[in-house]
């Protein structure tokens, strides 16, 4: 369970984020939408203790994220390409992350094999450094790495951007399967309304740092979001 408690972030006088309370129960797939500058990435960065909030706190499975680092053991994340190590090959990168997440070589190999279809034969065994992969393939690598080591919480910032149509569909399937068992809490942000409504149980809309909608996903949700954003 993740509790976001009166989190705000200000730079000088500009308030970029001001969230009262959001409680995300275990097993929920949580979608965050909003236009550019809405504060989605800032919220995720605070959740991952990469920037400090001006006020408030976030607890992740009873761990307050900026006082203890224990949340790192059960949280996998991918924010942007800066999460990749450019001079490693895909296999080496997975090996590195696997090492940090307590997986042995065999575990890593099984893990990569599971993602064979997702990678679509494009990046495995290609003798290419991650920095030389296309944006889409870099994203695939980062998303897969976020799922290593059986995380309880998975945080993905705009996972669908830059992916080709086939991979978008495959990713949706992977994410749905992930939350099927209701063990894993998934946090996703996206600009694509149809993707989030398809994947997430609950959708929160941010506008200029403030929560303006908090919807339980239903058949009407996509229409509701579309009308909100076209207004």
């Amino acid at each position, binding site marked *: 369970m993740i509790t976001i408690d009166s989190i705000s972030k200000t730079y000088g006088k500009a308030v970029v984020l001001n969230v009262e309370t959001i409680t995300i129960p275990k097993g929920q797939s949580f979608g965050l939408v909003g236009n550019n500058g809405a504060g989605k990435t800032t919220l995720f960065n605070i959740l991952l203790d990469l920037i400090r909030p001006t006020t408030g706190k976030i607890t992740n499975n009873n761990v307050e994220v900026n006082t203890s680092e224990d949340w*790192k053991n059960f949280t996998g994340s991918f924010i942007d390409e*800066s999460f990749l190590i450019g001079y490693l090959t895909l296999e080496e990168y997975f090996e590195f992350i696997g090492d940090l997440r307590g997986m042995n070589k065999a575990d890593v190999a099984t893990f990569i094999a599971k993602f064979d279809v997702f990678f679509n034969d494009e990046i495995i065994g290609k003798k290419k450094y991650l920095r030389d992969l296309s944006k889409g393939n870099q994203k695939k690598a980062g998303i897969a790495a976020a799922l290593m080591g059986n995380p309880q919480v998975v945080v993905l910032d705009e996972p669908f951007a830059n992916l080709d149509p086939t991979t978008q569909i495959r990713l949706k399937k992977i994410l749905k399967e992930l939350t099927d068992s209701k063990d894993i809490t998934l946090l996703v942000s996206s600009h694509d309304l149809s993707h989030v409504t398809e994947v997430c149980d609950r959708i929160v809309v941010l506008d200029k740092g403030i929560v303006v909608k908090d919807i339980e996903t239903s058949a009407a949700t996509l229409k509701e979001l579309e009308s909100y954003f076209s207004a």
Partner: protein
Amino acid sequence: MISHFLKLEWKQFFRSAAFGKSIGIKILMGFFGLYLIAMFLFMGIGVFYGLKKFFPEQDPLVLVNAFLLYAIIGDLIFRYLMQQLPVMHIQPFLTLPIHKNNIVHYVLLKSSFSFFNVMGLFFYIPFSLFLIKEGYAVPGVLGWCALMILLIQSVNFLNFLINKNKTAFGVLFVLLIGFFVTQQYQLFDLPGTFGKGFDFVYRDPIYSLLGLVLLLVLYQLNFKQLRSLVYLDEAVSQKVKEANTADLSWTEKFGDLAPFIKNEIRLIWRNKRTKTVFLMSFLFLFYGLIFYTMDAYKDSLPMLMFASLFVTGGFTLNYGQFIPAWDSAHYKMLMSQSFRYRKFLESKWFLMVAMTTLLYILSFPYLYFGTDIFLMITAGAIFNIGFNSLFLLYAGSYNRKRIDLTKGGLGNTQGTSATQFLIIIPLMLFPMLLFWFFDKFIGYNSGFVVVAAIGILSLLLKNYAMNFIEKKYIKDKYAMINAFGKES
């Protein structure tokens, strides 16, 4: 068109993330620039009367001319190492309605105004003024001075040709060797002949136009070469290299440190700049040869100590001072992973110590210079291992400059800030001073002993120091993430 480019250039300079922040380094670099300018200016002013005084029967202009070839060759070598044609940032212009010829002209013309080209003027112009003041023929001096400016510009463009073109580099290299051989065996007085040529231009200034011809030819060659390369898959892009995956399973015996050590090794080997640092550290091994063989330093023990620290410390100093900025590109990711920060730091420490040890072993041939020198190197190595490695890790927590690993090696100052200048004091001056003090006032090898003792003491206190350093890194985490996320 050009005015558009100039506006962009202006904005690029003043809006770069580095500009506001690192006023310290700007000032230091500024001072360095001023120092160079002052040196040249001083030479330009003083050389006429200086030469007159020491060689009263000879013409100062003829003397200067006789040395010009050395100056030109030196300039070229210096530029080859330091100056690169700035092509990468033209990428956004390629799809705009700007003629490619204009883009290329712009890049080339811009290079004409680089500091490398301005520097020499501070010598040639005052020198020319003094020549005129001393009654030399005005047209002759003006022609000579114009030729110098044209030659500086020619060297500028020659350098880019050599830099981009392996054949040109080969030809020049052969010519240099030939020049060196003729000098060594005094077969032929090339600088003198060149000097006579310059004398001739003074007498008959119309021939300075030859410099213009040379410049235009070189410019044209550059233009042709660059014009054919203004494509995303040519000059403007970086080359994609196939990954070299060496087996690093031998690192497994380092336990929890293994993933980080593996990563460090790959970091060093697969990026240009880190590779340069790594290879340079072997060049530093020869640093001692310069100092130990020069009579001027024979009796200056602190200077020898200084050299000895460098012999084994090349890697530790050059690599260590940018920790953890080497990892700046993926620092965010590291900070969201579950590991003890200590491991990350320990792996860097291990690497520095391992390299210093290796360099120390390679320095054994210095025994040839006697046990005193060798003891110094040994003391220096112990100091590097014990004190410097830990100190550099600590100093690293003050690094706030992103390093883009994909950028080139030599002469790349990215990531440099005032930190790099300040840390030199404890790293180098402190052991020199200690050595000097004990050697002078106590004697009997106490200098070696004290420097080595500080190293051993630091090594014994390593655990304690590491705790302290780890805390400092964790405390500065957010500032580092923020700073490393910014383009420099």
